[in-house]
């Protein structure tokens, strides 16, 4: 049997930190004379209490050395705990959401998916708005920690590829987490601040600037307006958010390298090149279509399509306007991009660019093998040959991804959703994208009218996608619980 004490200790620690974050919305609400502040305070105290109990109850475990299985358990249950704790203000605050809705909103927050089912955001109390932004921002930290410290070790979908970049092999999980918190997290924090300042200068109020800075860097996408970014009608704001999302979808290791002045590593990073290339290519294609087929003006069309492509690719979900009215080609492109996602080591979701690169390299190789069956060919990544095992893991990942998509779409339609919304919502949830790409359920649409069962399914899908499928799948393997 696995020793659960370090896991509980870890969850307690996470929960305590999470509780401290609740002080921020409490403070904001208190200052705005909004009656919600005691709720945040009470929820914070409850979480802190529960967290401290877990920490102290498991304090006698001196070894903080997490095994593989404990790491998986910590990731899975840490996330679920955060989702449960985060729903308290939604459930008991002024909003009085039902349990399902509160959980949905909270899961959408901590997985940085940010598909919302709240309406009339513009009139909502500042505390709740800040809380939603904070949830996704904290979720973003979790994603970064996961992709830098846990996934490479487990080789989830070929993430082994990135192990050498993040840390030395002999490092233990906690040490690596610490180094991560000092490095990548500093970058995360600085970028948030930078975006906050830029948005403030571009004309947002400080609170909305903070909310959108957090939303874009974490690739979340909760906005403070029902019209999302379209509310401001400001190209400057559009460009800043665009920049924020693009930064959020790029590897944070690279941002760290840039900060330390190591430009050469950035230039040699093929994943980044593909990422930017894909954004430009898709945006240009959509712009061309809009200009030719719908007589749009080139420059605004370019801005809107760049924004839409970046938002979808990074799994953010901000929208400058309702793309679902772009029928046909742009919608098809955006739908397919949903599955691609941003770079590994970023806060984005989806398949991730490096997997796409490996998959295409593999497919090309397969064709060459058909021609020369006896040649020894290995796929390459960044000029280095990639082992057979990594290639297999990536393809296994693709299979599980597509299988989960099919099952989730079927389940959603079984509980009453139509064909296109079911497909769009399933793809969006698994890729942690807040906006649904479908003709009838657009990026500005609310999930409020969905059946209750669909909300639960989507919430499960978000967590499944966030944990890169295999972390959760491992729990269902018989081997996991055996010694």
């Amino acid at each position, binding site marked *: 049997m696995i020793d659960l004490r370090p896991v509980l200790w870890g969850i307690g620690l996470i929960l305590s930190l999470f509780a401290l974050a609740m002080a921020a919305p409490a403070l904001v609400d208190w200052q705005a004379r909004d009656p919600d502040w005691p709720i945040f305070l009470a929820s914070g105290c409850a979480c802190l209490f529960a967290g401290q109990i877990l920490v102290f109850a498991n304090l006698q475990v001196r070894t903080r050395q997490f095994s593989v299985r404990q790491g998986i358990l910590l990731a899975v249950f840490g996330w679920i705990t955060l989702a449960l704790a985060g729903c308290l203000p939604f459930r008991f605050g002024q909003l009085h959401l039902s349990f399902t809705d509160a959980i949905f909103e909270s899961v959408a927050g901590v997985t940085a998916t940010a598909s919302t089912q709240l309406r009339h955001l513009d009139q909502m109390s500042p505390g709740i708005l800040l809380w939603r932004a904070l949830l996704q921002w904290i979720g973003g930290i979790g994603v970064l920690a996961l992709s830098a410290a846990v996934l490479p070790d487990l080789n989830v979908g070929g993430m082994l590829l990135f192990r050498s970049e993040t840390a030395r092999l002999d490092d233990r999980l906690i040490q690596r987490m610490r180094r991560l918190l000092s490095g990548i997290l500093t970058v995360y924090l600085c970028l948030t601040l930078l975006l906050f300042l830029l948005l403030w200068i571009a004309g947002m109020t400080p609170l909305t600037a903070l909310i959108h800075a957090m939303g874009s860097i974490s690739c979340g996408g909760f906005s403070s307006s029902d019209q999302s970014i379209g509310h401001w009608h400001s190209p400057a704001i559009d460009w800043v958010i665009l920049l924020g999302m693009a930064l959020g979808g790029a590897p944070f290791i690279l941002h760290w390298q840039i900060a330390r002045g190591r430009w050469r590593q950035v230039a040699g990073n093929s994943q980044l090149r593909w990422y930017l290339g894909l954004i430009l290519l898709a945006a240009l294609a959509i712009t061309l279509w809009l200009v030719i087929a719908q007589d749009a003006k080139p420059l605004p069309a370019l801005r809107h399509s760049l924004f839409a492509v970046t938002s979808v690719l990074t799994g953010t979900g901000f929208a400058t306007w309702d793309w679902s009215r772009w029928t046909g080609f742009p919608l098809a492109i955006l739908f397919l991009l949903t599955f691609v996602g941003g770079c590994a080591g970023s806060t984005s979701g989806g398949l991730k660019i490096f997997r796409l690169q490996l998959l295409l390299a593999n497919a090309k*190789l397969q064709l060459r093998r058909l*021609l020369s069956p006896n040649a020894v060919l290995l796929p390459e990544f960044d000029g280095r040959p990639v082992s057979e095992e990594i290639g297999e893991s990536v393809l296994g990942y693709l299979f599980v991804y597509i299988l989960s998509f099919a099952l989730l779409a079927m389940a959603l*339609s*079984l509980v009453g959703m139509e064909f296109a919304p079911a497909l769009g919502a399933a793809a969006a949830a698994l890729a942690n994208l807040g906006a649904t790409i479908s003709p009838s359920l657009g990026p500005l649409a609310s999930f409020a009218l969905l059946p209750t069962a669909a909300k639960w399914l989507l919430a499960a899908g978000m967590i499944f996608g966030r944990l890169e499928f295999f972390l959760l799948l491992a729990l269902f393997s018989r081997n996991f619980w055996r010694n």
Partner: protein
Amino acid sequence: MFCPEAGGFLFDLRPVLFANGLLISVLAVAMGVPLLLDLAIGGGESRAFAASAAISLFIGFALTLSGRGSGPFGLNGRQAFLFSASGATLAGLLGALPLMLGSRHLRLIDAVFESISAITTTGATVMTGLDQAPAAILIWRALLQWLGGAGVIAAALLLLPMLRIGGMQIFRSETSERVELMPTRLPRLVGKLLTLYAGLTLLLSLALSLAGMNALEAICHAMSSLSTGGFSTSDRSLAKFSSLAGWLCVIGMLLGGTNLALFVNPKRGKKWRLLRDTQLRWYLATILAFALLLTFWYWAVVGQLPQRAVEQAAFQSVSILSTTGFRLSDDVGWGGFPQVTIFVMSFIGGCIGSTAGGIKIFRYEVLFAISRLHVARMLHPHGVFSVSFNRLRLPESVLRSVLGFFMLYFVCFALLSTGLAIVGLDPLSSLSAAAAAIGNVGRGVGPVIGVAGGYHALPDAAKFLLAIGMLVGRLELAPVLVLLLAGFWKD
């Protein structure tokens, strides 16, 4: 320029021409069947068929003669690729002739779409008013499918394993010491299989005529079911006929989607291969699972009578999973679930070694095994694991090619649906039509292509793209893609 000595091509094209010539000649002879039928009943299509047969025969002979080489006939890997791609395309083009020349006067793109849809056993039709269509045309469509099915069965044994596409090499006779699935004497086996195929068709058409169809309808539907094509003789597809006929077609489609080689030699050694074949079990289990889900939907949500719900669900899941595409009714107004299910099932397909399209059950078995392997490796990074199929260990190369196939399949699907969206289809139709074409299912969902003869309304460019998609899917992706690879033409 077709001479190898002239430089440019480093491989001999003559065997490819020769094989194509033979194929076209067979097609020309097959045109005699509707011709004779038309002469017998006086349908007025005889001139079209006679002219088409003459043209085909001429081309066939010309190719055969120009490709005739000295020494025994044989194809190497590249030639086999080229033959499978060119043969299917050529047969599709020539098969369109009677449809264009006949009384229906289909436009070129429509006729080619219809013919390629038949030869690839897809069954997506652009023709409406089938109930009043001439008998010769109907039998020709069915015959094209049937020949396409026969071609697939033969190719699955003779060509594809040689090409090592998507793990097909495990069916290769040379590797039978590793994975013994097929008897070694291939040509005899192919003969047996085709006899079985013909016998089953005959049996099914007899049964269908007993169930109330007339002779023409019975033969057409029997051919359509066993080849997992999906062309019907009525716009209403199977809804026109009795429920018994529907169930008989279910059996036919079910058989069409299985690996017929299992029936040729059912007892091997002391073990019943039928019972031990994991692919067959998975195939049946998948069908059962989808049928149960759909039954639940039709019964509990739509509110149909239990008997009708079971019938409809069984029919639908077998029809799509075997990639036939017969319809018992339109899916309009029954909510999203049947639509999503049809879409998802289009990607699954039947067993390998059958006439069905799609990714195929065998590859899913391997993919599941690889995912389990991945989880196991996560938990035990230093463990040594392997994947097995039918209790035999699969070599690494098979895993690789199955995974490559899966990836390529989705790349093709994404490209095709994007292309369809560019030429003006709505998102739902472009996704569904792309899945139905590459999977050789033929039946799409949605208000445009989900209804009878719905493909008729598509723009010409979409029909063209879909015809290419069908060929790509039927040829298991690789032949067409390899032709695109620059390295294929060099050395």
